[in-house]
């Protein structure tokens, strides 16, 4: 019996004749576009805005966006599966209140951190279980927990704030690495970034995340445990939001119920800006980080030229709308371009 491979010549598909050279495929991605935009904005701001291109300013910029960076790491995979987590801002508030209450009770910061992380994991698990086990839409569940977690945070502390924390910890959080101006907390971020990058881009679990976003049914049929994957991602999202809450409480030395109100909007704006498709299935962490940095740089630069935060929120909103529209405009342009293609390539029989 002849071997099958010899009998049927495998139809080898080559991508070289698609007319897009390798450099174009690498450079003309959404992620690279946002990185270019970031570089341009950085360059313009450095020249135009006085005192922008200094280590001190850059340090404060990084301090400001650290919570966003933490949350965005976990929000990106959640959105790549086609879900969304609107409760992260509230979880930051709840976690900061937890840290405050624990440290007020004399438990010490390490214990307080553990409790806060536990709260985050439980909160994320509640979201994830309602979504995966009962099958409720992520949007509805997390709108509910957005109100619920914020409500618990505000309920626990009322209008009071806890402002005394262990000095050693607050100095550590506010410290910078040597004379570079880079916050020490960035070390933690780089470690987490590496972990999330490996998880999302270099493991079967990560491939599953993208597969779920492209087609959940197809992913399940090819052996991805979609429910478990989504649950894990929501727990991670809760954990990262809790981490951001710990940072928030210690860096601003203030645990308040209304900490980080509306932060979910900034995170989602940054993630979408960074090239994660709102329909799920595509995105990459370097784009997401660039998206967060872009929002951070714009805010800081405008703040330095005395443009108030409301303009920043207009810009964030418009950027969000534009980045979503850009995708569909590009699709439209591409569909116009593809339609009159010559029928030289073997056509599908259908």
């Amino acid at each position, binding site marked *: 019996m002849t071997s099958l491979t010899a009998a049927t010549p495998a139809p080898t598909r080559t991508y070289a004749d698609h007319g897009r050279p390798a450099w174009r495929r690498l450079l003309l991605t959404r992620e690279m576009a946002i990185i270019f935009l970031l570089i341009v904005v950085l360059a313009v701001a450095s020249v135009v805005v006085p005192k922008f291109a200094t280590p001190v300013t850059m340090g404060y910029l990084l301090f400001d966006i650290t919570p966003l960076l933490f949350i965005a790491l976990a929000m990106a995979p959640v959105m790549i599966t086609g879900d*969304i987590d609107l409760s992260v801002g509230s979880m930051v508030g709840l976690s900061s209140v937890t840290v405050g209450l624990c440290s007020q009770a004399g438990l010490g910061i390490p214990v307080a951190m553990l409790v806060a992380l536990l709260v985050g994991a439980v909160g994320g698990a509640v979201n994830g279980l309602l979504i995966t086990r009962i099958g409720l839409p992520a949007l509805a569940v997390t709108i509910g927990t957005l109100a619920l977690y914020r409500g618990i945070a505000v309920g626990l502390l009322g209008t009071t704030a806890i402002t005394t924390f262990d000095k050693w910890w607050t100095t550590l959080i506010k410290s910078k690495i040597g004379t570079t101006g880079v916050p020490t907390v960035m070390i933690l971020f780089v470690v987490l970034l590496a972990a999330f990058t490996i998880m999302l881009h270099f493991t079967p679990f990560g491939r599953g995340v993208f597969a779920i976003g492209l087609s959940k049914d197809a992913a399940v049929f090819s052996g991805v445990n979609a429910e478990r994957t989504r649950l894990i991602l929501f727990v991670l999202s809760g954990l990262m939001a809790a981490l951001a809450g710990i940072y928030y409480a210690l860096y601003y030395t203030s645990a308040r119920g209304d900490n980080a109100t509306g932060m979910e909007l900034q995170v989602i704006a940054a993630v979408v800006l960074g090239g994660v498709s709102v329909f799920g299935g595509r995105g990459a962490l370097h784009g997401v980080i660039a998206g967060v940095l872009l929002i951070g740089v714009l805010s800081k630069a405008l703040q330095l030229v005395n443009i*108030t935060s*409301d303009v920043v929120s207009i*810009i964030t909103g418009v950027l*969000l709308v534009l980045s*979503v529209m850009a995708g569909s405009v590009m699709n439209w342009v591409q569909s116009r371009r593809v339609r009159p293609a010559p029928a030289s390539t073997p056509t599908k029989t259908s």
Partner: protein
Amino acid sequence: MSVATATPVRVSLGSRVWSLVSSRETGIFLALALVVIATTIKNPEFLFSSDGWRDLLLTPSIVAVVAIGQAVVIITRSVDLSVGSIVGLSAYLVGTLFVAFPGFPVPLMFGVGIAFGALLGLVNGALIAFGKVPAMVITLGTLYAFRGINVAWTGSNRINASDMPDDFLNLGTQQILSIPVLTIIALVILIVVAWYMANTRGGREFYAIGSDPDAAELYGLAKTKRVLIAFVASGAASGLGGVLFAARYGTINSQVGDGFELQAIGAAVIGGVAIVGGSGTVLGAVFGAYLLLTINRCLPILGIPDFWQRAVTGALIIGAIILDRVLANRQAKRLVAERDAA
């Protein structure tokens, strides 16, 4: 074996009464009644003083108007997160116009607010319908952008009651036959929209698109147009909400309507408008708004600090969507059983 016939299905009076009694709207209304009764037992002033009766009807009516628009959008399987920002912009526009033209006719002001809100809704709708992108992200963006424009425009400025004509402000507290005028306005809008959604071709198309957008399009329904109309309606309702807010509270700063999106979506979802579209009524959304805001007002009287309001809102929303799912599952099971029996 049953034979499919084209004769109209006769609904017996008994089953009609049963479907009325077992409907979601009735359930919410009973829950509302329970809350009011419990609070009134604790403090009779809550219902039986003239102010108590008035506030009971008046306080939720602004959110109720916004929730009517939101319900139409959610039924079409979208969501409008920007309603709070539209309420804020519309309220400030009304105040600014009264400052600039003190003699501005009041009825015309309602028209201006509604038209302005509809225009902002058109921005949302056009981006969503023509861009074919998820409403949630677009309205998240415009939530930001509209609020930012509001803050930039208002700054730390504030419009006070003394800047607005008395006959406008009186609308906010006036009563006709002991029913507040604002509640009557909300009621009129409720009746018109509820009738439209239940009985007209256009209204049913919203439900069709919400329950299966692809099927609706295959059937030839103008999906783009309907989505556009839903967002314009939601914007117009929010614009009206802004006018009502100005009349009711008399003080307008840059944060008017902040968080209304949560209350409006919460009201709709609690009232049985499924977040996945295609089912629910605007009447349910209005009852949801009354339940949500009345519970919030009852908490302090029942001895729970009002800091816990938001937690209650969240718990109610989650409870409502779980209930929806349970009911939907049960109905699906029953339909399967009926099919197998036939």
